[in-house]
């Protein structure tokens, strides 16, 4: 029984980018507009990764490459250990990879195709050619997961933005993907809708082991991930746990991003000569640190 103890669990890599490059064709044929340059990245199965970057940093391009909407202009991309090569892959293989890597976009309205919620969720499975009896179950399960079962017969235009986005997520869940990429899926929503969608994302990761790639520019959302990647000018500027990443304040700011407000506050207090932990990410952590400091001062007096 030694083998079990000695075996080290190696996390399965679902997405691997090796010197990945992408550039858009410009109007001048001799000139290319590089978006991504020699990017190296590995995403582990079951992880919850937040991708941060300001507009034009290449973060959305990255997502589109992973979902095979765009094809790399250089370097290698491996999805589930399979090298992506347009010339040797069949159309079926392409669509199978697309099924395994789902994508939820920014505008909920532009993702819903049917006039009834459950018909929309069924759209994906119908495209896959799944037998009728099984589609029903997939649709019901997907709506249950996003908590929208009560709205199955509604029409999309009767729903709020957050609800529509959850339907869009259900439409992807019904395809039973291994990875879901959220391309700024919370950007257009009100705070209520945003927290509902985020709760759904966390639930998918926690309860169903879905690998999540969450592209966002809300720091408060990024700190909820296991890993944060900061993309700047087509390169990875920072990569690590939220705490590690946000401790590099200068690099984060150079990438055109902000650190969470609490971290900012802690830094400001530190600059005034009061020593507090600089890596607080959530409001609770910050409040606890300040409280501890005040209590300490009281006892010292």
């Amino acid at each position, binding site marked *: 029984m030694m083998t079990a103890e000695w075996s080290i669990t190696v996390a399965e890599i679902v997405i691997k980018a090796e010197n990945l490059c992408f550039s858009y064709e410009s109007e001048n044929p001799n000139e290319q507009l590089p978006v991504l340059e020699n990017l190296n990245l590995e995403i582990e199965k079951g992880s919850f990764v937040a991708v941060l970057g300001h507009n034009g940093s290449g973060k959305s391009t990255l997502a589109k490459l992973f*979902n095979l*909407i765009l094809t790399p202009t250089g370097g290698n991309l491996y999805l589930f250990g399979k090298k992506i090569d347009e010339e040797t892959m069949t*159309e079926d293989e392409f*669509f199978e990879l*697309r*099924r395994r890597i*789902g*994508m939820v*976009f920014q*505008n909920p*309205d*532009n*993702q*819903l*195709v*049917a*006039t*009834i919620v*459950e*018909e929309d969720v*069924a*759209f*994906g*499975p*119908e*495209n*896959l*050619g*799944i*037998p*009728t009896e099984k*589609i*029903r179950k997939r*649709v019901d399960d997907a709506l249950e997961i996003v908590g929208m079962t009560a709205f199955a017969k509604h*029409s*999309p*235009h009767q729903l709020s933005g957050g609800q529509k986005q959850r339907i*869009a997520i259900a*439409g*992807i869940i019904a*395809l039973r993907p291994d990875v879901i990429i959220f391309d700024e899926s919370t950007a257009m929503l009100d705070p209520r809708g945003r927290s509902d969608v985020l709760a759904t994302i966390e639930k998918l990761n926690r309860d169903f082991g879905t690998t999540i790639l969450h592209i966002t520019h809300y720091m408060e959302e990024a700190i909820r991930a296991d890993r944060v990647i900061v993309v700047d000018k087509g390169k990875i500027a920072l990569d690590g746990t939220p705490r590690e990443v946000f401790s590099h304040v200068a690099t984060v700011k150079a990438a055109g991003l902000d650190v969470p407000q609490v971290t900012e506050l802690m830094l400001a207090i530190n600059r005034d000569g009061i020593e507090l932990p600089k890596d607080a990410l959530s409001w609770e952590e910050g409040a606890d640190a300040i409280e501890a400091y005040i209590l300490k001062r009281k006892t010292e007096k």
Partner: protein
Amino acid sequence: MFKDITLGQYFPGNSFLHKLDPRMKLVLAVFYIVLIFLAKSAPAYALVFLFTVLLIAVSGISFITVLKSLKPIFLVLIFTTLINIFWNNGTTVLFEWKFIVITLEGIIRAITMALRIILLMVSTSVILMYTTSPIALTDGLEQLLSPLAKIKIPVHTFAMMMTMALRFIPTLLEETQKIINAQKARGADFDSGNIITKAKALIPVLIPLLISQFRRAEELATAMECRCYRGGGGRTRMTILHFSVRDFISAGLVLALFAGILLLNFYFPALIK
């Protein structure tokens, strides 16, 4: 203001007519139109008329709503009636003044023609428009026409386009309202001036709307590709339409009506020669 817009003229309900299979309804509606044209004698007309009244009663839609559906064709009705009264070569003259000659045949012809148009309008709207949701109608049409796919007619594509058009009508209206408000906030005036000035005032609304629709189409296409959409081939459906006893009963009734009209035509003289 656009939020609660009803698509088409569908009245949700739970009647016998609402529950019919849309494919059967489409076929029966076509059949019914033929029936109306076949009716020649007075008793045959009476039969179709009674049956249509029965249809309205069964559908649970108020007679007033049904009469209102005639509003768009009101002018057509008046026009046909007048033409039929004044221009005809009947022999039983009822009234004559200078060049105006009104004959009994003319009046009968006018009434039958008007009645025919009314019946056509009412029966199709009650059978199809009022009691069938647009989505069911598109579905029915797609499945009914699916054999045409064999001769390379893209039935699925057309049905998909229809469904998406229906899906985006409310979104489009909402967006139009947003743009109108935005332009009003910038001082645009949509309400004063003559028709040409008003039409010109709409240009700043239509252009942003058009541009945003192209952007939407692009995004939607990408989203659909991500959900593995690759056209109609190899697709399955979650809901498959099934004929029930109800559908066969209604088909039987329409066939009986058909036979009845032919018989009545045979035994009674035609109204229009």
